[in-house]
């Protein structure tokens, strides 16, 4: 078996799902956030350089820059000139108790939806559509729980 090692100690590697319909830069943003939640990335870790990502995924460098800018804007990473992009913030995991409360609320809503005659597919469609409405209008949605350095360093 051949294992392609990430070059020069980059902590994570990205992968793309061309069929997902999610824009490429968003996939990178999500994978960094996911890695932060799961602890694969911690403050001080270096993200792969633009060239490393581009050489691995065969994508336009601007796509990577855009993803890193967005992560910077969220206060999760910061670029250090000549050194790379480093993790600065962490993503707070929603505490278990909060999750249980949320799930109870959702269960009540599901009862109402089923009583109204929606089938599981209809419920999924409705939920996805409502979620999309929220996430496409960031001003209306709740800000994601992020605890970062809080600054938005100018894009290099």
């Amino acid at each position, binding site marked *: 078996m051949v294992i392609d090692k990430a070059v020069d100690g980059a902590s994570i590697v990205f992968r793309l799902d061309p069929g997902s319909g999610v824009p*490429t830069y968003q996939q990178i943003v999500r994978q960094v956030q996911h890695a932060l939640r799961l602890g694969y990335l911690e403050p001080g870790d270096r993200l792969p350089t633009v060239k490393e990502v581009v050489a691995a995924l065969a994508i336009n460098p601007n796509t990577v820059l855009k993803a890193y800018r967005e992560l910077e804007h969220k206060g999760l990473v910061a670029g250090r000139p000549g050194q790379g992009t480093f993790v600065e913030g962490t993503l707070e995991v929603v505490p278990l108790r909060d999750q249980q409360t949320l799930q109870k609320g959702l269960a009540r809503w599901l009862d109402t939806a089923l009583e109204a005659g929606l089938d599981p597919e209809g419920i999924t469609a409705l939920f996805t559509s409502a979620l999309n409405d929220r996430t496409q209008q960031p001003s209306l949605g709740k800000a994601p729980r992020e605890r970062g350095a809080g600054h938005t360093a100018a894009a290099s």
Partner: protein
Amino acid sequence: MNAIETRSLSKRYGRTRALDGCTLAIPAERVVALVGPNGAGKTTLLHLAVGLASPTDGSITVLGGALPGSNDALQRIGFVAQDTPLYKNLSIADTLRLVANLSASWDEASARTHLSRLEIPLDRKVGQLSGGQQAQVSLAVALGRHPELLVLDEPVARLDPLARHDFMAILMAAVAEEGISVLFSSHVVSELERVCDYLVVLNHGKVQVAGDVEELLESHRIFTGPTADAAAAAASLLVVQAQQGDRQTSLLARTAPEFTPPEGWAVGPTNLEELVLAYLRSGTATSLPGPRPSNSEMRASA
């Protein structure tokens, strides 16, 4: 600086109009995809840009005003022609030596690094390499000249998926590292979205679409709604392509980002492949920078 600028550029071969009045301003340091059906004039435009052909009418300049074919332009432009022509009887090492002697500036180390990373043996004859490897050699040679503008004619058309990926990976790494401008033609539209950030669509020798990919995707939406209301909805939109069923119609239209769809219509994003195909099918609709075309022109296919 513009990588390529054309004004009413036309090229006729006998009675055939290969290019017909193309006006373009392609910014530098972009990865530009030139797409269109066979015979649209893609290769002609590329040949005019590198100085292999001269215009019948109009003008073309490259890299901020240089004339294609001039010494200045030749040294700053790299060109990989269709089917990556190399001397099949030369070994890779001899090919490198040949290019070194023919080029004013040549970075042997860079070319060798690329080739060794691809595990292409230097003593092998070019003709013994696979199509994918020959394409890689052409690219390594072109990049070894450190061009400011790299022009490629259908570079990945004949490559298998793995070779295609490797080829694009090297090209994109060079873009990231050296900030070169890239212009390549392609008729494989599905993979362009990941690679290019600027799009030019040629059709029947004319420029049909030219613009930043992100802006193009932002400014086009798919509207889906009842066919009964389609005419009314289309009247308020710049429709590129309408696909009508008996009951449901979907319209691909150019809109402002904040545009609210007509009552009863759902709106969704489009993708580059869908957008390119819609324009090519409609034949007459255009999306060009600068003053907007008149509504009647845009609505031609509705």
